[in-house]
């Protein structure tokens, strides 16, 4: 229970920090954020919607508002998911743009990242078990090299090879442009078809880290006494590997899941950009380039919240896997 309360305090604090940070960045930057935003709206747009300046001042703080009261108003607006109107998608509210794009990213990253974790730890487990064997000498350097290349480079290469040269998969967008999103088979198969290459890039980019991490921990675990004991009992090789060594070795990589996820969330921006995937990352890049500050700010908040949610899920998994936490 105490553990749970401490974790709860951490989530709340992290959430609050994320909110504060997204509020503070525009304030700390040189120049007034309002001026920058209004530059991107045409005079007609401001005339049509006279309240718009006030809305922005409530979120970013303006000349007429003091910093603490602007902060308080920002928190209130954030609680209602009100982040103003996106200047590059005028007159769509920011929250609507996010609602439209975020599900694509969550689906893509969620699936691909979990696949990378499973694939990476499995390879790491086998590599450590037969250390110096064929598997170890081929896969570990291979994934280490793959992990060294930035995700966008792997993405460009894969687009070139599988999309352009071989023409196996579509290379742009998340579904066929002639389709409308809906719950039918044609749409789903098109979405999966479009998702395979981006997902492959994410898996290749992130599996390497897990391979090395799992291998290192597993090598240490193998020399533990209880593994020797399991061998001595005459248990099958495979059973010792999965139930004794890997069961214990999985905990450190699992705890590294959330920070890695934070990196992955950043990495997905590049992948989405290369594939013009209509997710939150691509939108963030477009917003930052177009200086759509309300959208940029709100998306940063979204990206900051994702790892906190991931930590929460990992804590729950940990609760199941690690009896020491349950006991305390």
């Amino acid at each position, binding site marked *: 229970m105490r553990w749970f309360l401490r974790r709860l305090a951490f989530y709340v604090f992290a959430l609050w920090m994320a909110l504060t940070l997204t509020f503070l960045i525009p304030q700390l930057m040189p120049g007034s954020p309002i001026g920058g935003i209004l530059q991107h709206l045409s005079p007609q747009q401001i005339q049509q919607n006279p309240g718009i300046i006030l809305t922005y001042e409530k979120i970013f703080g303006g000349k007429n508002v003091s910093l603490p009261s602007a902060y308080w108003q920002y928190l209130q607006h954030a609680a209602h998911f009100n982040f103003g109107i996106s200047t590059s998608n005028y007159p769509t509210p920011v929250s609507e743009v996010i609602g439209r794009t975020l599900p694509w990213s969550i689906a893509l990253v969620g699936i691909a990242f979990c696949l990378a974790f499973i694939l990476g730890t499995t390879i790491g487990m086998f590599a450590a078990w037969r250390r110096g064997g064929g598997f170890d000498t081929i896969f570990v350097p291979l994934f280490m090299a793959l992990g060294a290349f930035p995700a966008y480079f792997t993405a460009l290469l894969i687009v070139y090879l599988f999309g352009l040269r071989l023409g196996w998969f579509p290379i742009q967008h998340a579904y066929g442009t002639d389709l409308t999103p809906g719950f039918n088979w044609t749409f789903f198969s098109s979405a999966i078809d479009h998702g395979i290459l981006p997902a492959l890039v994410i898996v290749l980019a992130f599996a390497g880290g897990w391979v090395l991490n799992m291998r290192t921990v597993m090598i240490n675990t193998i020399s533990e006494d209880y593994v020797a004991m399991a061998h001595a009992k005459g248990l099958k090789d495979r059973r010792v590997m999965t139930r004794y060594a890997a069961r214990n070795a999985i905990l450190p990589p699992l705890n590294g899941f959330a920070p890695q996820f934070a990196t992955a969330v950043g990495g997905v921006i590049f992948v989405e950009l*290369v594939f013009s995937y209509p997710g939150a990352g691509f939108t963030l890049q477009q917003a930052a380039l177009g200086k759509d500050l309300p959208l940029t700010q709100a998306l940063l908040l979204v990206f900051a919240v994702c790892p906190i949610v991931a930590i929460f899920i990992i804590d729950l998994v940990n609760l199941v896997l690690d009896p020491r936490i349950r006991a305390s």
Partner: protein
Amino acid sequence: MTQLQTELQQPGPLEPLAAPTSSRRRIKLPSWLTLMLRNPKAQIGLGILFLFVLFAVIAPFVASASSATNFSYATREPPSWHHLFGTTDQGSDVWAGVVFGARRSLATGFFVAVLATALATTLGITSAYVGGFVDDTISLVTSVVFVIPTIPLLIDITAFLHQRGMTTMILVIGCTLWAFEARILRGQALMMKNRDFILAAKVSGESTRRIILGELMPNMISRIAAAFVLVFYIAILVEAGLEFLGLGDSAKSSWGVSLYWATVNSSVLQGEWWSFLFPGLAIGLTVLALTLVLAGIDEVSNPRLRGLPKNRSVLRLLARRHA
């Protein structure tokens, strides 16, 4: 862990340099460096890195600066004798872009690493050594900065920035990349703090400053070096990434900027593999080299990770497994 290391290192017949623990109180760097220089992974890594630095230094002798930014050549030429790496859609030389780009990319990465490592070391050690409220505060801030995704954060900051010169980028990236190392270094310093030699220094009345700088730091130098290398390559990736997204200074030549122009001009879709392959390979090889150096440092400081003996015959392996 360090205690474990010394215990493990003592019986090791391979590295006579690691054995004497009596010299611990002096600066450990030389023996540690020699060990690292003997490590094959670190050797390969340092070798590749040296090549890149060399080309960055002698860039004006192997390429002309103007051909990287001047759009005066025939466009979309595949690699040839005249243009080793081909030319871009805009008619600039890819080879010159890669060679001159190395200067900017490596320098940014290096200075970010210096800044972030300094921050991480200061905060990590202070937090561990002072303890109490200071520790709680620093740890909390660290763990929060740690989970906020760097790339979106940097995108947001650069979106608000008006100028994106190299110094600005170094400061901004450096201030976001310290958190994970601060955590590790804090852990190390915590373990070190209660070791006998620190207690002895305290009892003999040495000042806190001297204990930290003269006793604690020299013993953590291998971990700090690892932190430096880690941040170095992450910084190269992050900086190139921001430039790739178009959020850097697109007028200067660097690896990320080359990749940015390759995507903006949709070179990939037109089948011009050379305009993105070579800058991308440059980033990848540099990062790979630094990863190898890091693996080398890890192996030196954690003997369990060290490779098996060279002659791995099948029989030997079988014997090992059933031993």
